[in-house]
């Protein structure tokens, strides 16, 4: 197996008023090609910072970051921008440009990469087709549901055919049904396109259901990295009667 992302003794700290917060402390981690790698931990454990170090959205204080055989930590600004085009990223709050249509949002990374108008149009359609939103191309993000917005964000992240997809709490703003849908899409991205996925989440069910390997973090350090057998994500029923049943059962229990 070849390594796609590798962190060597990477540290990151923040100045907070008088004190210094050590968000990530001397972490080394290798992520193999084709893997779905989960990072889990409590709030403030440093998992989001760790993810942002992988595309140098956060510049490490120390250590080396290598992605796709390029040492990102030593690249010039210009080269770093080019390298980032083959590292897709999606976020908890989608971060779509609200004043651009779905089509225009997915087209942005292609414009940055200098695609011609024709090639851009074709590629955008392809990406929207992949996430099942081709019919929404001319709508604005505000007209979409949360799950649809995250699909658009995935299409946008995939537009430049990245080797790696970084996901920062991709389902934490979504309900369980929608979460299952997004996890399906991510799995397809991994299986069909061979994209290596890193997924940061505080939801154990999410990590359990799609990851091959999981890194557990605690106060800026890696506690352990384990290989797991992924289990199907269990979707709670969306039936109002089921909700009622759950609620009243609890009440009955407490009455008893």
């Amino acid at each position: 197996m070849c390594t796609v992302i590798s962190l060597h003794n990477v540290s990151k700290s923040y100045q907070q008023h008088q004190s210094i917060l050590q968000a990530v402390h001397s972490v080394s981690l290798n992520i193999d090609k084709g893997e779905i790698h989960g990072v889990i931990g409590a709030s403030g454990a440093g998992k989001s910072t760790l993810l942002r170090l992988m595309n140098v959205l956060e510049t490490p204080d120390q250590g080396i970051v290598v992605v796709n055989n390029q040492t990102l930590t030593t690249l010039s600004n210009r080269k770093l921008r080019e390298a980032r085009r083959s590292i897709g990223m999606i976020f908890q709050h989608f971060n779509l440009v609200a004043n651009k249509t779905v089509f225009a949002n997915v087209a942005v990374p292609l414009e940055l990469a200098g695609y011609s108008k024709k090639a851009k149009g074709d590629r955008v359609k392809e990406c929207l087709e992949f996430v099942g939103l081709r019919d929404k191309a001319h709508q604005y993000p505000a007209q979409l549901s949360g799950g649809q917005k995250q699909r658009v964000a995935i299409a946008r992240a995939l537009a430049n055919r990245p080797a790696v997809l970084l996901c920062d709490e991709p389902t934490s703003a979504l309900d369980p049904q929608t979460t299952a849908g997004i996890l399906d899409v991510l799995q397809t991205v991994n299986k069909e396109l061979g994209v290596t996925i890193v997924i940061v989440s505080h939801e154990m069910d999410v990590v359990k259901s799609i990851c091959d390997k999981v890194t557990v973090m605690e106060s800026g350090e890696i506690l352990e990295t384990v290989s797991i057998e992924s289990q199907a994500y269990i979707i709670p029923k969306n039936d109002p009667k089921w909700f009622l049943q759950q609620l009243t059962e609890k009440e009955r229990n407490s009455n008893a």
Partner: protein
Amino acid sequence: MPEIILKYQAEIWQSIGETFVMVGISIFAALLVGLPIGTLLYLCRKGQMLENRALYSSLNIFVNIVRSFPFLLLVVFLIPFTRFIVGTAIGTMAATVPLSIMAIAYYSRLVEQALLEVPRGIIESAVSMGASVPEIIFKFLFVEARSSLLLGLTTSTISFISYSTVMGIVGGGGVGDFAIRYGYQRFETELMIYMIIIMIFFVQMIQYTGTTIAKKLDKR
């Protein structure tokens, strides 16, 4: 049409024209210089892309100083500078100099505020895509802030109209100056009221147009 308006028809049209020249050039200056300064103010802030304390402080102090001047004093204070730029300190063109300086300071602050409203996550996603600073400005910041930028320009334009009314002091003319000289100083109260009505009409039109277009542009 009231008789008094017919009597002063030519002067009224001329004063409206002068107001348009003064306010028009101020808007132009606000867009040409105020928009870049406001964008720089935003970019050079602490924790932003081009964090630069020295540049931020100088721009910030410039904007604050200009805006803290009582406008009449700014006009007088800038007379030597105005003479240097347009060759004279008297007349409508001369009046556009202090107005433009005020317009630049005023609009750049509103631009900074509009850009600060853009969610940080959007900038983060732009950086993660490999966008350069100019690309972030034109493909993300200005797109997301466009309705606030337009509303800011609308507010500014209305302030420029108000500022332009005192330009009589350097012979700038305009509707306000006409109302004071003919309406107030010659005791033609009726004429003064008509001029005020004309100003109210302009302000209403500008605000309505600005708000309507901003609403159309806003898809958030």
